[in-house]
């Protein structure tokens, strides 16, 4: 029988603290819904025919369109392209935003999109979704934006800022998505407190999350303090992991 000890006030306080720390995990809307909003707003901002957002796959070799708005949006979502093909791939590889104003001169650019959407744009602006530490998570593209008189590069700049903000959304969503599982792994592993800190560090929770790391160590200590406390910690963390990963 899975009997638990009555939680002590210290344990209750710990659970409360854990709840506070992870509460934000339930806050970010699902990434794709968030990105759908970003593409819709970006398309409107540029008065463009379409805007789409592609994310890098786990292997780092493919871009997958996860959200789009405008012409051909339904067709492009779900399409994957190899990294070494076309403008989006170069933008992801180089980490540099870029715009092309007469794509039609080289249909290679638009072929991926055209195959899926039967829409061939004449101009594209694309920027990498790069995190603050330089990791490229994907690419955002605007097709046929209505550009102002005389190209000053400002559109590239604006899309760059949007891309950077979008990268934060993607990073946070991904982070929280895997948080429960990572914590569980950290706590149940037979490692030293330093090992737990390291595990938390490798989860990407490195900046301003010292409290969370300390919490992890506290739970680790709890788990090590006896079989019942260990079961309690494991059970609690399993619940938390389930809580922060809705739909799984």
């Amino acid at each position, binding site marked *: 029988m899975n009997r638990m000890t009555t939680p002590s006030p210290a344990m209750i306080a710990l659970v409360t603290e854990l709840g506070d720390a992870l509460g934000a995990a339930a806050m970010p809307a699902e990434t794709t819904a968030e990105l759908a909003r970003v593409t819709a707003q970006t398309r409107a901002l540029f008065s463009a025919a379409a805007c789409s957002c592609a994310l890098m796959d786990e292997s*780092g*070799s493919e871009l997958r369109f996860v959200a789009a708005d405008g012409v051909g949006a339904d067709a492009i979502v779900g399409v994957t392209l190899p990294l070494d093909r076309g403008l989006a791939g170069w933008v992801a590889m180089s980490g540099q935003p870029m715009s092309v104003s007469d794509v039609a*001169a080289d249909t290679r650019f638009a072929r991926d999109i055209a195959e899926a959407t039967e829409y061939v744009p004449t101009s594209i602006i694309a920027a990498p979704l790069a995190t603050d530490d330089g990791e490229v998570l994907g690419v955002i593209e605007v097709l046929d934006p209505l550009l102002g008189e005389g190209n000053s590069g400002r559109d590239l*700049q604006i899309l760059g800022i949007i891309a950077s903000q979008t990268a934060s959304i993607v990073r946070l969503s991904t982070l929280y998505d895997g948080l429960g599982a990572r914590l569980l792994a950290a706590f149940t592993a037979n490692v030293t407190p330093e090992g737990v800190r390291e595990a938390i560090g490798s989860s990407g929770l490195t900046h301003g999350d010292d409290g969370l790391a300390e919490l992890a160590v506290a739970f680790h200590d709890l788990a090590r303090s006896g079989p019942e406390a260990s079961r309690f910690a494991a059970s609690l963390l399993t619940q938390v992991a389930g809580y922060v990963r809705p739909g799984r």
Partner: protein
Amino acid sequence: VTLPEWSHAFAPGELSPTSPLPLPEPAQEWGWSAATGRGVKVAILDSGVDGSHPMVGGLAGSVAFEPDPDDPSAYRAIEGEHADLVGHGTACAGIIRALAPDAEIFSVRVLGANLKGRGGLFLAGIRWALDHDMDILNMSLSSSSEQWFGPLHEVADEAYFRGVLMVCAANNMPGPTYPSQFASVLSVAAREGSDPWSLAYNPRPPVEFGARGIDVEVAWNGGKTIVASGNSFATPHVAGMCALIRSKRPWLTPFQVKSVLQAIADNAAPSSDGGA
């Protein structure tokens, strides 16, 4: 969030005059008049270069770096001709060729089919360029992850002390970008205008130089041209200018080349210290 440096700094109303060292006037005359880039080796670290494109007019050499999990270094180098995977490296080569027609252009392909280990490939490409006595590296790429800060910084310093000019595209997004933000390299952002020789020195680094990079007709895959914009197209303009300067005065060190560029820049003003 800090605003991007590049578009701001080089806007007509924003760019303030700078006081370069007093080179004989006109500074272009001293810096690169009659130079063709002859004898200067320029490596383009990018997606590859199509040497047969009419705007490129041939390559002096090519090497491609690819991830290789089986190799201790995690990459392998493949010498010999290769394709441009996208067209961007070809665009850069075309720009450099237009400015420095006799420069020896090498394609060092470091962008490939996988994003993993990107920083390692950049580093390997730079290493190759140093080991093969390149004079100038054109790097229209940046934004590596923090783990590469140290290694890239080290190799950028090595390049600097060996007199190799690393010309890097600035990133127009907040956050650190390597190696473009290192003082040992020449970082470049795009500025408006249709003059390929236009050049500005930004008195508010880290982005030091502005060159043509908006609506540039560039070479692309398939022997075609496209009209494109980005810091990545401004970079080869400065690399081309560096090739000219180096072919005329090979003894100039990186800091001296920066000084010559500053003197040539459109916003160069007479020295304010009255010491002329």
